[in-house]
């Protein structure tokens, strides 16, 4: 520790020279909050000096630096000082610009403050109230855009023209005083404090015999000391070093030299240290030593002064503290959200890998009832990257069911859903990284005119969709038609992206993950093995009438189907995607469902994704089924089903799993083959759409 090294140096080379431990500035977190409030509400552009207050304490355990502390109450200069602490008066210079901070004349500020101390010494004011000897300057600039605070403290100390000679080396009080004297000193100090109506006395005079100790305030000098050959003064000493007094002694010695220098021979100094550990108080570790004061020059000019604090690198310079993390509301929101999630991990699911979830980039195709609810649940999980694709505008019926929109968003024809959803996400949580794409997803079977412009647009949309899918980790299919799910299913399949699919009936829903094909190298092997047809399940699809129920593959309760053999949304279609919005009534389009359904299905889609991400094999994980409900779950969060099919009428969910269909129009090798090259894929997909529109080639090819 510094005490040892400096102590050694003192005894060997400069053993006769008194050195002081400077103050270290110590700021409580609340100080900066309060300065911010003052700047915004009171000071504004006012740069004039302000009176503030700090304090220091003489009861620290060894090892702590000698501090001058400012807390949030520092701006209340007349307010109380903490018990057993000494106040220090300060002058705050808060500049409006960094430039003003840089260019302010530090030398002049120090000289001005020192002159005031010197004037108080000369006028005798410091004798009456010696606490004004401990002053400080604080120069600040608050950059409230970045929450960067620049500051520089100065603890002015007047200097003797030459070194202060030590007559008797510092000793611990208990080596000099008897137990009786120490007890008497403690009692005398407490009496003096009571008399002064305070709990800490910064400076005092002292006389002692073998049994008694007398103390008096500084102003009583003339009546207290009859003989000034050797006087003893006490200083409330915040330093804990065993060889050095703290800073507050410096200006006192100047005062003594000015007032009585010619009469003084030796000055004995008691560095009064008073700490309480484990409920027991001690002062015997105080320091006592004797010095001879140099003479001050005869003229009454203010002595030279020092005091600007060094920065942490030990150089003369200001400090800067970056408080954006605890003051910037956006950063606070981020850390609170993260902390809440970590709590779940700490408290409930120790092996939860949050980063896998938080860092997942999610592409939401559809920003309607499902999209809104999926986005909100993703945010709850701390997911930062959320991208929306939707080509619809917000209509008057939307806000009550789609929790990212408000009435205002419907006015004037309605805002774009994708764009409005992004805006709302940023309002909910500015830490989100969200983008919106107001575009339609190319669908097979919708009649369009084959103008070159239309084809070019269709091609651009396909390219854009392909690019978006490439850039994300998980693709959510949340549209309200089944045809629009087809192309993303094909593209995401070829790129091995996890696809989460949610679809609603009137009171039924399906939430499923698509099977994740094995990487291209092993594709041929698996393609041959996947040919077994899926069995239809007794438990599920029979209960809902076709048309109002979402179309899902007939499910099997086969257990142990690995992720790469699981089916997709289209696997059990007997027909290729056609135009389901044509020739159908509204409820057949599945756009009217019980209002709670989208929230349930949207939330389940996200929760299922999170569970899959927790599995070591991710999308390749073996599908859990309803039968696994009693078994040891495969992840810390539980099961990783293939599908969740919900029946609101019965308030029941089942977890079917089904195999991929080898002639599926969306996921079979014939529909994804050869599309690993992106450009080829675009052309194939475009041309297949065009083909589809005219010849229904898929209906023929897939159904045979």
């Amino acid at each position, binding site marked *: 520790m510094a005490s040892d090294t*400096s102590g050694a140096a003192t005894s060997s080379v400069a053993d006769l020279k008194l050195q002081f431990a400077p103050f270290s500035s*110590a700021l409580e977190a609340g100080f900066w909050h309060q300065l911010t409030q003052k700047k915004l509400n009171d000071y504004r552009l006012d740069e004039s000096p302000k009176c503030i207050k700090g304090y220091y304490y003489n009861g620290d355990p060894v090892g*702590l630096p000698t501090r001058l502390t400012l807390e949030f109450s520092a701006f209340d200069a007349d307010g109380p000082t903490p018990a057993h602490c000494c106040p220090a008066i300060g002058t705050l210079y808060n500049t409006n610009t960094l430039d003003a901070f840089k260019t302010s004349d530090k*030398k002049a500020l120090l000289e001005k403050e020192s002159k005031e101390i010197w004037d108080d010494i000369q006028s005798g004011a410091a004798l009456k109230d010696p606490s004004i000897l401990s002053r400080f300057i604080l120069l600040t600039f608050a950059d409230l855009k970045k929450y960067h605070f620049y500051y520089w403290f100065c603890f002015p100390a007047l200097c003797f023209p030459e070194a202060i000679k030590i007559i008797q080396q510092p000793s611990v009080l208990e080596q000099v005083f008897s137990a009786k004297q120490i007890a008497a000193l403690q009692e005398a100090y407490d009496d003096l404090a009571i008399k002064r109506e305070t709990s800490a006395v910064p400076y005092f005079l002292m006389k002692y015999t073998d049994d008694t100790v007398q103390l008096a305030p500084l102003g009583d000098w003339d009546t207290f000391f009859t003989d000034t050959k050797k006087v003893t003064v006490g200083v409330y000493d915040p330093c804990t070093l065993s060889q050095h007094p703290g800073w507050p002694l410096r200006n006192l010695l100047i005062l003594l030299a000015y007032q009585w220098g010619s009469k003084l021979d030796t000055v004995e100094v008691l560095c009064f240290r008073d700490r309480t550990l484990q409920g027991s108080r001690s002062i015997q570790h105080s320091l006592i030593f004797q010095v001879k004061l140099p003479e001050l020059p005869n003229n009454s000019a203010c002595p030279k002064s020092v005091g600007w604090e060094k920065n942490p690198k030990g150089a003369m310079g200001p400090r800067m503290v970056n408080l954006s993390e*605890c003051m910037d509301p956006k950063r606070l929101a981020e850390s609170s959200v993260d902390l809440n999630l970590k709590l779940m991990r700490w408290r409930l699911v120790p092996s939860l890998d949050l980063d896998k979830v938080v860092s997942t980039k999610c592409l939401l195709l559809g920003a309607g009832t499902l999209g809104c609810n999926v986005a909100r649940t993703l945010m709850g999980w701390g997911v930062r990257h959320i991208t929306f694709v939707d080509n619809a505008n917000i209509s008057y019926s939307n806000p009550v069911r789609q929790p990212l929109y408000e009435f205002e968003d419907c006015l004037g024809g309605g805002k774009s859903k994708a764009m409005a959803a992004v805006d709302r996400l940023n309002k909910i949580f500015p830490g989100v990284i969200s983008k919106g794409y107001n575009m339609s997803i190319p669908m097979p079977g919708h009649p369009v005119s084959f103008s070159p412009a239309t084809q070019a647009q269709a091609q651009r949309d396909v390219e854009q969709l392909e690019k978006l899918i490439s850039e994300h980790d998980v693709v959510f299919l949340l549209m309200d038609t089944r045809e629009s799910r087809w192309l993303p299913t094909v593209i995401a399949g070829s790129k091995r992206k996890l696809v989460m699919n949610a679809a609603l009936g009137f009171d039924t829903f399906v939430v499923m993950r698509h099977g994740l094909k094995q990487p291209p190298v092993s594709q041929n092997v698996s393609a041959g093995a996947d040919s077994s047809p899926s069995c239809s399940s007794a438990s599920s699809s029979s209960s809902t009438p076709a048309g109002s129920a979402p179309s899902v593959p007939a499910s099997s309760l086969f257990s142990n189907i690995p992720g790469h053999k699981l089916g997709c949304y289209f696997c059990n279609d007997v027909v290729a995607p056609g135009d389901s919005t044509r020739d159908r009534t509204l409820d057949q389009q599945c756009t009217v469902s019980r209002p709670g359904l989208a929230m349930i299905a949207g939330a389940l889609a996200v929760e299922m994704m999170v569970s899959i991400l927790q599995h070591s094999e991710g999308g390749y994980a073996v599908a859990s089924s309803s039968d696994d409900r009693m078994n040891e779950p495969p992840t810390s969060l539980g099961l990783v089903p293939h599908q969740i099919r919900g029946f609101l009428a019965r308030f029941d969910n089942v977890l079917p799993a089904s195999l991929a269909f080898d002639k599926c129009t969306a996921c079979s090798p014939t529909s994804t083959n050869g599309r690993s090259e992106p450009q080829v894929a675009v052309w194939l997909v475009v041309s297949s759409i065009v083909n589809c529109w005219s010849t229904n080639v898929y209906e023929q090819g897939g159904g045979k």
Partner: protein
Amino acid sequence: MTQVSTGSEADCMEETFHHCCQLLLQQSEQLRDGWSWESVQGSQVGYLKKTVLRSVDINLSSVWDQVGSSSDSGSHSVCHQQQQEKSALVASYDADSIKEDITDDDGGFCAVSKDSRKVLQYEYHILYSCSYSTPVLYFRAFTLEGRSLSLEEVWSSVHPNFRIRLQNSPLNTITQQEHPLLGQPFFMLHPCKTEEFMRPVLQLAQDQNRPVNYVLTWLSVPSLTQQPQAKLMLQFFASHSQVAVPMRKLKKCRAP
């Protein structure tokens, strides 16, 4: 769980809290262990406060990185941290670049100044929570520059053995909250288990016909307060069980 209680019952509990605090402060003043009462200007509302300083031997940022990569908060947080460090570096360069003609001309009067960055200040506040009808602990830790630490940094400053004990404790739910009286960000020990924990303690005291200071008892639970002084507080409580709050009154107030 106790919800917001109405009328005289709630007032009574809060009154009891204030009464307990006053008694605690009297004892604290005798022991000089640093608790003080901070009142919000112009009102009776306030809280107990204590600040504790500790030297920290460890290099915070390196420990933090270990915590991060070992699964606690992982890559995105670490990345975040690196960004902060980077921006802090840039910014401190900014502060350093301010050229000064002030010289360090102290003629050797100045003793070696110490590296102050390894000292942390811990601030504890005890407030009365109307919603839970219990005392609630708010805390934060900050550097001598006044920069508050993240919870990871706070954890990394806690001794590993103690950390494990705290993490396994069923009472240590911590959230980041605005201080209800100061409006500044603090960490809060969630009080939902307080009632559960306190009940047997209070029951025991009542069975033994012994008066009990609710706040003191609450403070004495190490996992509730997590202070370096937890031991001291236990001692404190043991030696001051004569601090009398009539148990019946407390009990009556707590009845639903």
